[in-house]
């Protein structure tokens, strides 16, 4: 399955390069900064440090301090600054170090960045990319481990993209920058390929060297299968693939659908896949209630509940803050173990 649009040129393909998601993300940013002088990046520790999760490594050296800016710890001010600059035709990329910190600047995000286009009757565009790190699994506690994508997706006016692979990290970044809307771009710390965090073997992937767009709003079937559809996003895609490989040896053929975007949501892809398998497991590292997992199930139920051969099952964070202690955290996260038993459950 092709997850990126093929580059136009077909002459002598360069040897495949494998990059981490962090490097691929930076490559996408750099390509657009090169092409478009109105693109700039601002946030905390994005300059000399290169981003706490390596989201901006080398950008300061390459583009200088006028286009790669370390901000004070003043999220409301710099989030609003990004919105204002976008209103004036710039294309800011603004980093919120952890998605968990949206609390201190949410008004600028959902009442301003997200609503100005609507309130102006379409007369004012706000082409901001808001990048932020999400996810747990390394005992960072209740204020530094959340995904929260369901919250952004719930509030109208923002596109929400969540790459799980290096190739999509680059392509979605380029699409997000070129998009005329606010785009929330969430990267999972555990999928970035950081040297200092446990990695999945899937954190490295092939990335075409030239610029390309990954379409926003299109899911990818990252593994096709006949028996059960696992719909998921972000790091959980890697876990779902691991589980699918494992269960294949037991004769269970799992299809894995990587949503890649929550807004817009590729509802057709969900319905199409469940239409073939009749069984749905939704894996979501966000809180369970009122979120992505319910939206995916409702999508099928609204179109045609008879597609469900068995009741769907979800694997999400039970509605509890992320605990610090490892044993507790591993209990509430959508681990491979939980995904495996959910698949077995729908298989009956």
């Amino acid at each position, binding site marked *: 399955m092709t997850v990126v649009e093929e580059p136009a040129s077909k002459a002598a393909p360069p040897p495949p390069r494998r990059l981490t998601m962090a490097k691929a993300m930076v490559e996408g940013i750099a390509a657009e900064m090169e092409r478009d002088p109105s693109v700039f990046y601002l946030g905390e*520790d994005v300059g000399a440090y290169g981003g706490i999760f390596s989201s901006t490594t080398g950008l300061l050296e390459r583009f200088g301090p006028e286009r790669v800016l370390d901000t004070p710890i003043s999220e409301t001010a710099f989030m609003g600054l990004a919105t204002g600059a976008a209103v004036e035709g710039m294309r800011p990329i603004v980093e919120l170090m952890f998605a968990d910190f949206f609390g201190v600047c949410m008004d600028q995000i959902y009442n301003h960045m997200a609503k100005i286009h609507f309130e102006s009757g379409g007369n004012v565009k706000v082409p901001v990319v808001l990048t932020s790190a999400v996810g747990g699994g390394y*005992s960072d506690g209740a*204020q530094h481990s959340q995904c929260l994508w369901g919250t952004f997706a719930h509030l109208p006016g923002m596109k929400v993209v969540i790459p799980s692979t290096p190739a999509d990290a680059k392509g979605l970044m380029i699409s997000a920058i070129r998009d005329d809307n606010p785009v929330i771009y969430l990267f999972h710390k555990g999928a970035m390929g950081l040297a200092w965090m446990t990695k999945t073997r899937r954190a490295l992937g092939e990335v075409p060297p030239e610029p390309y767009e990954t379409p926003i709003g299109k899911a990818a079937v990252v593994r096709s299968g006949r028996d059960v559809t696992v719909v998921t996003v972000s790091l959980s895609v890697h876990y779902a693939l691991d589980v699918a490989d494992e269960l294949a040896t037991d004769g269970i053929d799992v299809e894995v659908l990587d949503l890649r975007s929550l807004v817009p949501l590729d509802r057709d892809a969900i319905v199409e896949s469940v239409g073939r398998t009749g069984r749905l497991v939704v894996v979501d590292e966000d809180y369970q209630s009122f979120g992505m997992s319910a939206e995916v199930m409702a999508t099928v139920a609204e179109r045609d509940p008879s597609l469900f051969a068995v009741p769907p099952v979800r694997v999400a964070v039970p509605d509890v*803050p992320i605990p610090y*202690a490892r044993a507790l955290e591993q209990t509430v996260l959508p681990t491979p173990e939980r995904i495996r038993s959910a698949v077995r459950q729908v298989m009956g």
Partner: protein
Amino acid sequence: MAAISQSGFSQSGFSQSDHPRSDDSEADRPLEGSVRLDLYRTMVLIRTYEERIRQEYHADKTPGFDIGAGKIPGEMHLAAGQEPVAAGVCPHLRPSDALTATHRPHHLAIAHGVDLARMTAEIFGREGGLGHGRGGHMHLFDPAVHFSCSGIIAEGLPPALGQAFAFRQRGTDSVAVAVTGEGAANQGAFHESLNLAALWKLPVVFVVEDNDWGISVDRGASTAVADNSPRAAANAMPGVRIEDNDVEAVYRAARQAVERARAGEGPSLIEVHTLRLWGHFEGDPQTYRSDLETVEERDPIPRYRRLLLEAGVLDEASAERIAADAAAEVDRAVEFALASPEPDPATASAYVFA
């Protein structure tokens, strides 16, 4: 001895009585030997603790550093170098006074008398911890001494206002101390809290730990003013800045600020120019750090130790005893933590609601 700058109260139109009382004769007089020894003892206990946590934290993260591995996983922000702030402020507090700290909370917790064993168990993620392993090192809550902290920058300040409000409403003379880093002084919550505390004359003491760095961004690159005490003046309260990481100057300034708050005269602010001896968090390569070379010589503990030895307040034998006592206390805390069981996964959803 210490350079103390008081912000321009006269320019901002405050009466002299709004200043922290600066009784020069008292300020010149050396502190009592027993007080100085206590300051030293607290600093040594904090340092011993932070060194031990650092050692335990890294012990089983080899060969490759993996932040989530080992018996203490997750981010770890240690306060070595910032002992003078905690040691200087907390002697003026009672267990009934509140203290809100930051993501870098251990020194303040220790100096304010948080249960060391249960705090350590929390850091190790054990059932016997202050929060039964739910919180972790950035989320230590000990209601017995009204201690709390938050990992969200500057967000520990507003709750301190509420604690102060409750103390006053209930007719007590308790106070609340709200601590933040200098990076946090650029957050809206900081400025909102100063204004509200001054407006309602709440018994609050704001303490800003200026360790020059907000992760990789130095103060000059993040903050338009060189000194936060004028920001106190801008919010109708006295503010002082203490240079040199001087524990005795902190002690004196905090005494005035706490007395003022207890007397119902309203909030004040103390900024201490302190030192981040180690990385922002453990594992921080500090490649951005331009002042690394001078860090060791600015360590406040050897300096204070020399001063007390020269003053004849401390001798080698008592210094050794203080170090040994601290080591024994830390040993006991770590032993307690390690003996405490891991939380039962079946209880992972506990404590969400009362």
